[in-house]
């Protein structure tokens, strides 16, 4: 019965201020519908919400009644209940026991983080497979959206693979810093783990030799805002003119991997660039860039400056 209590609590929380009944009463109604009338959980949830939400809450009710297929790029509000058709792009290591799965979903309009909780006891999603997910809730943290799976979510695996598009962003500015952890790095060799080794140690899989990789964690600044960037091996080579082989040679000659980071700093800081790529968390993953972005027209600026004097 703990399951129904969890569901009741979820519904109660979802109704928020519009709730006219207690969580226990919601639980009672659910028990009746599920145990006695053998309604599927999603139907029971719908029925309870229709029954307990007051008439004067058309907006909230509308959300449930009109709940529709949403594309990931259309998500711009938290606490929306939606249905999505997605491919599991990546699964990450859950940071706590409360989280069953965490990772990245994609559809033709973009990518988005998802979380499913241990208490929801959902079937596991498999990386690379495509699914129809009904009844997921949107969430927001610092302007970034994600979706949460919950007990009422139905998961249907699809035969046709969902195409994953890039929700590409473009940012222009000056590269004002290259952060630590840039240059020649080593990654964990354990299957499915790509963590960067710190002093030859993976935080999950312990001490090992690992495999070399090359990256830049950069900071782009346009004078009004700051954007952190990650250049992968290929983009690092394109920007700094140092490929993995050259980086390894530099490190061998200097008996120090840090020499690569210092050389990269030397070559890239202070330059203006325009970068394109998907945003992920606080980073933008650079897919491509231009080193001579467009500048404002001097004539237009002169007109504006003269108007001020």
């Amino acid at each position, binding site marked *: 019965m703990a399951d129904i209590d969890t569901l009741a609590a979820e519904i109660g929380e979802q109704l928020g201020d519009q709730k006219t009944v207690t969580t226990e009463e919601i639980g009672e109604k659910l028990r009746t519908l599920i145990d006695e009338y053998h309604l599927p959980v999603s139907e029971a949830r719908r029925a309870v919400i229709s029954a307990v939400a007051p008439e004067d809450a058309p907006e909230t009710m509308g959300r449930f009644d009109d709940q529709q297929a949403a594309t990931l790029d259309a998500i711009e509000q938290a606490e929306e209940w939606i249905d999505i058709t997605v491919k599991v792009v990546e699964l990450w290591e859950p940071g706590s026991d409360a989280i069953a799965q965490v990772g990245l979903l994609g559809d033709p309009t973009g990518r988005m983080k998802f979380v499913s909780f241990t208490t929801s006891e959902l079937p596991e999603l498999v990386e690379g497979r495509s699914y129809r997910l009904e009844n997921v809730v949107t969430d927001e943290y*610092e302007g970034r959206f994600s979706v949460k799976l919950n007990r009422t979510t139905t998961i249907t695996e699809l035969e046709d693979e969902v195409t994953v598009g890039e929700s590409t962003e473009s940012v222009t500015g*000056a590269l*004002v*810093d290259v952060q630590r952890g840039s240059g020649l790095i080593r990654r964990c060799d354990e299957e499915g783990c790509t963590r960067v080794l710190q002093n030859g140690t993976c935080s999950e899989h312990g001490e090992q030799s690992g495999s070399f990789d090359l990256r830049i964690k950069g*900071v782009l*600044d346009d*004078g*009004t*805002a*700051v954007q952190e960037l990650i250049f992968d091996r290929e983009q690092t080579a394109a920007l700094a003119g140092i490929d993995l082989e050259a980086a390894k040679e530099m490190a061998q000659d200097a008996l120090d991997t840090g020499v690569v980071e210092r050389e990269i*700093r*030397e070559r890239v*800081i*202070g*330059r*203006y660039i325009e970068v394109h790529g998907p945003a992920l968390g606080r980073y933008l993953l650079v897919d491509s860039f231009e080193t*001579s*972005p467009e*500048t*404002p027209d*001097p*004539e237009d*600026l*002169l007109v*504006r*400056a*003269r108007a*001020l*004097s």
Partner: protein
Amino acid sequence: MSQQDIPTREVARRVFAGEFNSATYTFTESDAERAPVYALLPTGAPANRVYFVGTLTETEDVGSDNEYWRGRVVDPTGTFFVYAGQYQPAAAAKLRELEPPAYIAVVGKPRTYTTDDGSVTVSVRPETISVVDAETRDAWVLETAGQTIDRMQGEDPELEAYRAMVAEAYPDLEEDIPAMVVTALESVDGAVTDELPLA
């Protein structure tokens, strides 16, 4: 969790030397021990960090016991003074090695110093110094002109409070910033669009 729990990186303002050297008023926005210090730009914006590009015209070790390097970096409106010592080893090494003249890009923090006669001078403590090309210099002048004009036109509502602060902090500011921007733009305009004169 509120936004204040996450330290965000301070933006690097674009400001001409002529305006920067007048930014003698500094302030903090909280009483916390390590609260960031801002220089108040006369066009009405807080600057905890700046990014500028100019011509390094002179370097000198002005330290007594330890190396303490001073660089003069000239833009179309004036001179930035950049000081780097033992706590900025990479930047100090750069100033030691570079042969003026050279176009350099500097990312750094504004610092003020009150002299014995009570006047305040403004300088830069560099985080990074890098050699760049003339194209980057011109791009910086245009960008800085645009952002200086934006600040003067007061279009960013988030900067409203700083515009009010300027009236109190700099009651007799003599710097003619619009004229300074025009001068800066004319220097690029000529360099970029006009043919070189025939010899």
